[in-house]
């Protein structure tokens, strides 16, 4: 067969004659030519499996399959997964909560379907082998494996009665499209006539540059834009006083991947352009790549005003740790080093833009639509009202999609050309240019008295914040506040600095530096316990914060759940220690160990306002609309906020129509970060629900316990004594078209921190403790995590199934952080050199949800999203040490490092 004429494809039983190059990736043909966007692309390299389709019943990566190879075969995509096995699988995925962001779901479904069609009674090992080629960054795989094993399950999904939504494990409300492949992510929209946008990036860490003859280079129909074309102020950043990042570099670049030019034109032309030939002359300069170089005397300063390359230092001080350390019975000291960690969501950044009247519409993946709007508007010189951000379904974010990425490029092209456009980052672009978890170099000392009570602790450390500010200030401020852990430390000094280098930007990543600090603190506490001869769990229990205690910031706490979390681990701890001891007595080549670690985490911005606003409206037709602006990146806000609102208003969840998020339709709910949405947006939703209920009850003169039922054109309200009907058609609609409405804002009551970091940084904290059981291969240094028991105080589990999903997903990321993840700029910018856990790397996870209600949170709820990964890595490290003596101070605990540390410990 030559590349002339059409290629015949059979997809989901239908024949198509394709006029396309025979060597084209099948994934591109399916998505772009056939519109079958259920097949996802995460890497174009076989590493993620999101593109898995069946070719003659066998799973293959569509991204590695040339079109010609698929010719003559039968291709099945998720859209064609309509046989009984497929239908059952989708139902099981929904029932089990196996889809969070959902970007991996089509690939998982296809891989599972191939297995089950071959062997319907496959066991766990077979399921793991079958799913081993599909990566999921959200779920920790547990619910996915459960769903596949329970494909024949007849259970009906959990439903919630009116008034009982809070606490019900209902399936996610937005889950349907995620499991049938119809969810539309940033890359799934192809506006008619859209130009394709690509960008030219710096291959250097630091360089000056000059453009050559761009006009001569650009093929016909291709437009090129540079900083000179940007109408607005060429500077953005997530924290306005620190905004320092240009959307398009001007004359010099400070990091690899920094954008210098935007190229747009007809897709077939732009796709084939070799951007390595773009006329730009680079004049590389010696980069600053280490903290030492950045802080050395006379080092080049990346940003004029930031002396010594220090972006900011955060401090918390109370008492006099120096004196207390000197006189203490038990003293220990540790130093740790952690690397860059990549978010590795499976969906690379993608989106589209178009004009609607005079308004620039940008539909892209995001965690913070309002921030996107304001930053993009400023860069493009537009008033914010002229930019509308419609968040596309987002295939994972974990903090990185808080910062704008491709929004200004999409906006600029559409603004300048008047044409719609689209852009999709390659995996390499995504990994090279977006933010990372800050590498940390931390040192701490702590002391306890003879009874095992902590008397003092000092913490000092540097965080590599990379070339631009991003969330560096948040990390520097959060770390000193949290580095004590949820413990009483009467004498405490902590300082953390965010330091600029020419490395990738250290940004927001689940925990804002607290996971790194917890590794330090929790391994240090093991040292103290071991030195002092205390049981490691008991040592933590003795020192755990209690209601009425003051934190290192001097804040008096209520609703403290750390004690309850540690208590919940007491029995599992005893059992696990006994099991490990028995095992080790019988084996030499592998040894088992048990470790524990705890966490606390303040929900919302640190001592800064971060309000959320929720609008509820009733239409004349009798529909109740919940305007919910919190982006759900898989964590479940769409479901949890609706559950809270339903109970506050007193209707069934099914009575609520969800609207948004969309900056044109939903009031600001702030960003999806800092574990704030369940608490803060949830609180606003509770208040809006209660406010609307109060109005309805007042109008009908009904008692507190009345039941509200919407029906076409009316609300029916009844209490035990009688029933009233509100005729909605008779009421005057407001400006939003609602005949009844309520809008409520909530901003956590926090207080500024003083010079010594004393104050009320957060109104609500969540707590947790995890126990890890590991097995270390004494000959190879490899570590297998066998089980993690995770007790998390969520205040109130609004949706226990979603909470469990968060715990499992957080543990997967914590396990990666502990054992395998290390981003090396310029070296691991793909998913085969940068390793994240696969289904085969996950331990058994036992979640224990603790409910110590918070006086402030909605229905007592606290945040959870980031807490869940904080204790995992230190619990694993402590377990490794227990098993084999290896004290890992440089992460990740690669097998070679474990073996070396074992030797050092004399094993």
């Amino acid at each position, binding site marked *: *067969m*030559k*590349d002339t004429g059409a290629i015949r494809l059979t997809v989901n039983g239908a024949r198509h004659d394709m006029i396309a*190059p*025979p*060597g*084209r*990736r099948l994934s*591109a043909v399916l998505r772009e030519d056939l519109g079958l966007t259920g097949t996802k692309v995460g890497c*174009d*390299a*076989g*590493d993620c*499996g999101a593109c*898995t389709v069946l070719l003659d019943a*066998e*799973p*293959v*990566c569509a*991204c*590695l*399959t*040339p079109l*010609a*190879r698929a010719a003559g075969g039968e291709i099945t995509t998720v859209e064609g997964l309509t046989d009984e096995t497929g239908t059952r699988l989708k139902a099981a995925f929904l029932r089990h909560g196996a889809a969070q962001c959902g970007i991996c779901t089509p690939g998982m479904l296809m*891989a599972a379907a*191939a297995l089950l069609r071959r062997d319907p009674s496959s066991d766990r090992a077979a399921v793991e*082998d*079958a799913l*081993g*080629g*599909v*990566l999921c960054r959200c779920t920790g795989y547990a619910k996915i494996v459960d769903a596949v094993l329970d494909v024949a399950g007849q259970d009906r999904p959990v439903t919630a009665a009116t008034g009982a939504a809070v606490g019900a494990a209902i399936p996610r409300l937005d889950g349907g499209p995620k499991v049938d492949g119809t969810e539309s992510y940033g890359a799934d929209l192809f506006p008619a006539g859209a130009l394709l946008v690509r960008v030219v990036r710096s291959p250097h860490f630091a360089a000056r540059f000059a453009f050559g003859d761009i006009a001569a280079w650009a093929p016909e129909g291709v437009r090129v834009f540079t900083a000179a074309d940007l109408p607005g102020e060429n500077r953005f950043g997530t924290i306005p006083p620190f905004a320092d990042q240009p959307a398009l570099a001007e004359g010099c670049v400070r990091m690899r991947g920094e954008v210098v030019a935007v190229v747009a034109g007809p897709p077939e032309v732009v*796709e*084939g352009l070799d951007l390595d030939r773009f006329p730009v002359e680079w004049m590389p300069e010696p980069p600053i790549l280490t903290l030492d170089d950045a802080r050395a005397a006379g080092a080049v300063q990346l940003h004029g005003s930031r002396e010594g390359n220090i972006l900011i230092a955060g401090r918390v001080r109370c008492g006099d740790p120096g004196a207390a350390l000197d006189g203490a019975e038990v003293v220990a000291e540790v130093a740790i080093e952690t690397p860059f960690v990549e978010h590795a969501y499976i969906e690379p950044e993608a989106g589209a833009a178009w004009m609607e009247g005079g308004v620039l519409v940008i539909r892209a993946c995001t965690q913070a639509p309002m921030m996107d709007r304001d930053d993009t508007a400023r860069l493009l010189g537009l008033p914010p009202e002229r930019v509308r951000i419609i968040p596309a379904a987002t295939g994972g974010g974990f903090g990185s999609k808080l910062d704008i990425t491709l929004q200004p490029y999409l906006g600029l092209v559409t603004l300048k050309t008047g044409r719609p456009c689209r852009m999709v980052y*390659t995996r390499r672009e995504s990994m090279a240019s977006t933010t990372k978890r800050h590498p940390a170099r931390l040192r701490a000392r702590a002391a306890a008295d003879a009874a095992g009570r902590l008397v003092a602790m000092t913490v000092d450390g540097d965080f590599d914040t990379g070339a631009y500010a991003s969330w560096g200030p948040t990390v520097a401020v959060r770390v000193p506040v949290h580095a004590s852990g949820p413990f009483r430390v009467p004498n405490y000094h902590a300082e953390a600095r965010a330091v600029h280098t020419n490395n990738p930007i250290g940004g927001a990543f689940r925990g804002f530096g607290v996971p790194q600090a917890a590794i330090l603190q929790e391994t240090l506490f093991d040292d103290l316990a071991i030195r002092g001869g205390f049981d490691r769990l008991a040592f933590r229990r003795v020192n755990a914060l209690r209601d009425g205690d003051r934190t290192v910031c001097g804040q008096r706490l209520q609703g403290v759940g750390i004690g309850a979390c540690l208590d919940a681990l007491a029995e599992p701890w005893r059992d696990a220690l006994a099991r490990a001891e028995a095992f080790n007595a019988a*084996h*030499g*080549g592998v040894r088992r160990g048990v470790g524990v670690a705890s966490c606390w985490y303040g929900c919302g911005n640190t001592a800064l306002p971060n309000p959320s606003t929720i609008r509820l409206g009733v239409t004349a037709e009798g529909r109740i609309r919940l305007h919910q602006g919190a982006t759900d990146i898989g964590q479940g806000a769409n479901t949890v906020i609706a559950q809270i609102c339903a109970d506050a208003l007193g209707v069934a969840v099914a009575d609520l129509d969800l609207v948004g998020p969309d900056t044109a339709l939903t009031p600001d709910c702030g960003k999806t970060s800092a574990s704030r949405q369940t608490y803060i947006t949830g609180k606003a939703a509770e208040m809006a629900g209660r406010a609307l209920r109060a109005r309805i009850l007042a109008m009908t003169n009904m008692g507190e316990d009345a039941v509200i039922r919407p029906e076409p054109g009316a609300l029916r309200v009844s209490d035990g004594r009688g029933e009233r009907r509100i005729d909605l058609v008779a009421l005057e609609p407001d400006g939003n078209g609602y005949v009844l409405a309520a809008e409520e804002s909530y901003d956590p009551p926090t207080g500024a921190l003083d010079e010594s970091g004393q104050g009320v940084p957060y109104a609500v904290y969540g707590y947790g403790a995890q126990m890890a059981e590991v097995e270390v291969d004494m*000959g*190879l*240094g*490899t570590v297998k995590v066998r089980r993690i028991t995770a007790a998390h105080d969520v205040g109130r589990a609004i949706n226990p199934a979603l909470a469990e999903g968060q715990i499992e997903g957080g543990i997967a990321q914590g396990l990666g952080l502990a*054992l*395998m993840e*290390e981003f*090396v700029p310029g*070296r*691991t910018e793909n998913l*085969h*050199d940068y*390793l994240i856990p*696969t*289904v*085969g790397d996950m331990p058994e996870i036992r979640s224990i949800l603790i409910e110590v209600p918070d006086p402030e949170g909605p229905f007592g709820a606290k945040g959870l999203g980031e807490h869940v990964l904080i204790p995992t890595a230190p619990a694993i490290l402590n377990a490794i040490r227990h098993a084999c003596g290896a004290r890992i101070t440089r992460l990740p605990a*690669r*097998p*070679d490092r474990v*073996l*070396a540390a074992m030797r050092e410990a004399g094993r």
Partner: protein
Amino acid sequence: MADQARPETLREALAILSDGGRVAAAGCTDLFPATESQTLPGAVLDLTAVSGLRGISATARGWRIGATTTWTDVLRADLPPAFDMLKQAAREIGSVQIQNAGTVAGNLCNASPAADGVPPLLALEAEVEIASVNGARRLPLARFIAGPRRTALRPGELVTAVHVPMDTGKGRSRFLKLGARRYLVISIVSVAARVVETDGVAEALALAVGACSPVPLRLTEVERALAGRPVGELAEALDVGAVHAALSPIDDVRAEAAYRREAAVTLLRRALADLTGQGRR
């Protein structure tokens, strides 16, 4: 650009190749990851429709593994125990998706230092069958792989099959791979071991190590020192110094060189212990 030929006979394929300038493509699991383009770049000769290139057959002189035989085909083939290590390697290559597309010859031609197919085929003393319009030739695998990412293929030549001689398709075998995660992982170290046992003695044995030198290696010196010993002693008697001397690993993001040396020894010992019934550890 985007010129792709997909012939159905070997003759046709060789003729097209002899015009020059074409890249052979089979499963494309190495070719596609090497480009960000949506279309395979350059002129391509797709081998997957060529008849007679796929599948494993027993011949009078041994076994023939066709060039486009996939790793899944290897896993499903009926083969004697000497090939267990090849199957164990097949199961460890990437994921099911990769095994369904990736081919044996592709793995050899890609010539990665960490190619998992190479140590078992070295330990089977496989020969590579090469063809061009000018005829066919055979090379021992150890000579076929000329260096990292380099083979002895000349312009116009294709690999058509891999042969395992009757003599070396004997004994029991074991492949062990060490990676930093369970699936989809490039080997930090891999080893293959084959032992032919007669009356409790290792009559012949073959040991190979991957990812510890520019190309995977047979440890002929080490083998020689072990041959003729009681199988129960093999693991213990392994000459650590000789293994270390043969290997020349590097430091990279996966592990340090010194660790690779040590891990190779540990894995070789375990493979030998497994094979000779001592169980693990």
